[in-house]
């Protein structure tokens, strides 16, 4: 499934300083549909090159990292259980840098 992933607020530094990644991701861990949970584990393995603890804590993003699916706060769509669809845009922004 084609997805656009965007990293901001300093998170781009963890993935080769590239903000926008057009990726192709299939269902993870035997799920029949791709969820945010599956996407996060894919991102951790495939995109994050350094200091993964700045991005993840346990099986979710670390507190202070905002997630938007198609410009909508993922807290409204079920966070980890949010189902992803073709051409979705997922944005990760760290709130933890700078003032």
């Amino acid at each position, binding site marked *: 499934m084609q997805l656009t992933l965007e990293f*901001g*607020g*300093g998170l781009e*530094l963890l993935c080769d300083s590239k903000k926008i990644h057009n990726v192709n991701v299939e269902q993870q861990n035997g799920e029949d549909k791709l969820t945010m949970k599956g996407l996060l584990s894919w991102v951790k393995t495939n995109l994050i090159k350094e*200091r993964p*603890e*700045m991005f993840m804590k346990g099986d979710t993003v*670390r*507190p*202070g990292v*905002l997630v*938007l699916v*198609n*410009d*909508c*706060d993922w*807290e*409204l*769509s*079920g966070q980890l259980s*949010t*189902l992803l*669809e073709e051409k979705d845009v997922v*944005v990760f*922004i*760290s*709130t*933890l*840098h*700078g*003032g």
Partner: protein
Amino acid sequence: MEGKRSKVRMCCLCNQSRASLNRPKTLQQICRDCFYLSFENEIHQLIIDNHLFTPGDRVAIGASGGKDSTVLAYVLSKLNRVHNYGLNLFLLSVDEGITGYRDDSLETVHRNQVQFGLPLKVVSYKDLYGWTMDEIVKLIGLKNNCTFCGVFRRQALDRGAAFLKADKLVTGHNADDIAETVLLNILRGDIARLSRCSSIITGEDGPIPRCKPFKYTYEKEIVMYAYFKRLDYFSTECIYSPNAYRGFAREFIKDLERIRPRAILDIIKSGENFRISTNTKMPEQGTCERCGYISSQKWCKACVLLDGLNRGLPKLGIGRSRPGIGCKEENESRGVKSIESKQCGSLDF
């Protein structure tokens, strides 16, 4: 397509548009336009309720190029326009002289100057003190540099504000910052700062009062606002900020927020409700004999540090005579890489 997302949640305020944000403060699910309005109105209400400004005031906005001060500059100039505050707004930036960090963030501030149409004044450590942070770090290493940075920045902002003939200095400290500082001051037993850090206006007895219009504004909302409005801000960490102790406090606050978002407001409230017991001695304010800046000692902290630097004894003035935990813990936690803290000194009140 029939999926969970075809069941779109509507905004609980207008019921017209799709909800885009879960507000941490109220847990309301609201659309972008209602979010902008609530966000701006709450700051307006805080400004009015606390009489932060008087018409004709010259107001310096401490601008680092980061998210908080960028959103603050944007929102303040908008409110000033919409509600006719009659303020003269200025951007005020401090150039610490940190290659690869401050020079990049200052470029952001220069762009903001154009985007928001606000005049900009930059004061530099080099001009004020004769030293850049790069030069100081070369001399003293990475151990105590945040002490220098924090003390120097505070005074640099005051001097820049004086240059601008500003009546008020506003900073972008947000609710998360203030909750974190309340916690740190409790951990340090620093009663004087505990009561100071949670008040919306400080330094009314000093040369220029400082205000924090974002005192109750959640960091999440500031970042969401900047994202939705596509505001241009800088988000790289200070290369000299190994402030691990503060980092742990931040992480703790964020963990609490995830479980119960109200926790941030409750911690601020605790800070506000602490009263100083009569047997706690508050330091008396005077002026520095050397440079005239406010100081409770013969020389102000910046002059003590500078004297050490200039005499080649940079350790001078770094220890604190006050009981409780000083900067030592913050700066000596070797090996623990700070991964979340704000740039050093930016949170000192």
